[in-house]
């Protein structure tokens, strides 16, 4: 069984929010308002997730006049697996994502083992 180092409550919330709609690209500020997490906490969480290969990032390709392109985020396959494993490892009192699909394969498995 893969041992998952338990992330912080805020990181768990971000993972769950992203895992609820795994195929959908999300904006940073939308995640902030949805989860009630300040930008000063949200972006370091997103950076760490991206550093670990759990988060995919990209820029808007469609240009919207009057504003710069926005950064987009969604979980990678490894991120989805990590989110479901972390939710399963969480205590019963913590809310768990309800619609997390179990990935068939877990890329970058060694990164997920926390060893």
């Amino acid at each position, binding site marked *: 069984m893969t041992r998952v180092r338990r992330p912080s409550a805020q990181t768990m919330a971000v993972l769950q929010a992203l895992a609820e709609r795994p195929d959908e690209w999300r904006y*940073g500020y939308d995640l902030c308002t949805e989860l009630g997490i300040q930008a000063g906490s949200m972006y370091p969480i997103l950076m760490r997730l991206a550093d670990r290969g759990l988060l995919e990032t990209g820029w808007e390709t469609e240009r919207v006049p009057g504003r710069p392109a926005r950064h987009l985020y969604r979980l990678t396959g490894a991120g989805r697996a990590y989110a479901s494993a972390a939710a399963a490892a969480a205590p019963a009192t913590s809310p768990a994502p309800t619609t997390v699909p179990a990935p068939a394969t877990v890329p970058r498995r060694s990164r997920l083992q926390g060893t």
Partner: protein
Amino acid sequence: MVITFAVLAVIGLAWLLRPTGDGDTPARIAAVTANRLPAHRQDWGRAMAAELTQVSGRARRWQFAAGLLRVMLFPPPRHPARVLAAALGGLLAAVGATAAAAAEVPSLAVFAAILGLLLGGYATVAASRSHRLRPTVPRVAVGAVALAGVAAAVAAVVRIAVAYPAATTDRTHVFSVLFALALTGCLALAFGPVRHAGPADTAGPADTVLWWALAGALASGAGWAAVAVTTPVTADGTTSLLWPAGAAATLAVSAGAAATTRSRLSGVQAGLLTAVLGALTRFALDLTAILQVHHYALRSAYDIAGYAHSGYPSVASYVLSDEVAGDILGGLVLYPIALLVVAFLGAAAGAGLRQLAVRRTSA
């Protein structure tokens, strides 16, 4: 140096809050934040700045900008283990330096502890920001000059502490803190990245800034050393009359750097580096020269009256204590502040001269 940073912070804040047509203050903070993140986080800086366009409401925009500032100051480290190692190494070095100072020069134990902690903290911050600056010749040379200057400054004070322990006894610890902060600030400036706001087509602007600073610091340092060697030593020090030389070097360097890089910011940085490196040289030279005095005397009625109630065991320790404190406050704090103003003036003059030359050429 502490006040220098405070002055720089106030100037930076005033610049941020100035009314311009580039959006509100949170937008300017976001733009600055995006540029000040470590190189590997620059993309994230642009992402955060772009996201601010979606935030409406004054309070929310300020809150978002404050969050970005927090990320700029404490970006998540890419290699947490490296940061932990730097923090532990710094802590161990601080403990070792404090123990050594307590055993050999007890009057400098507090200074050693604070300097060790500050340098350890700086190393930790540098590791967390993944500063991996390309080791060019001028960068290595500036770093070496700064290290030599800090070592010379510490050695001069240690020599006084060994010869006259009472002269470096700091009951309030104010000067120990100031001295440690000043030395750490010098090293942070010398080893920190060089910001450049000039055109992108200027070749090697960071190296140009460093070359100018190095030339200015070495020229003023050599001049001071020559005067210190050739001037009869008195208890008043030998380099007190050399402030104009330091100001001239700073002015020339900031003007030259601004003109060659076509950037006022680069000129100020070169001038400030010259002032800081020169301040270390001047400090070490002055205290070393004063230590050569064979007979210390009280020269004013104020000193005569003060010495009687000071509790110092000898006139020498009283005079040297006064000199050390004066050189820390005047030489390492006030001197760089005064020269920072000179650097701003020099950079403005250099940039103006450059524009004038360009206009004449094109006319």
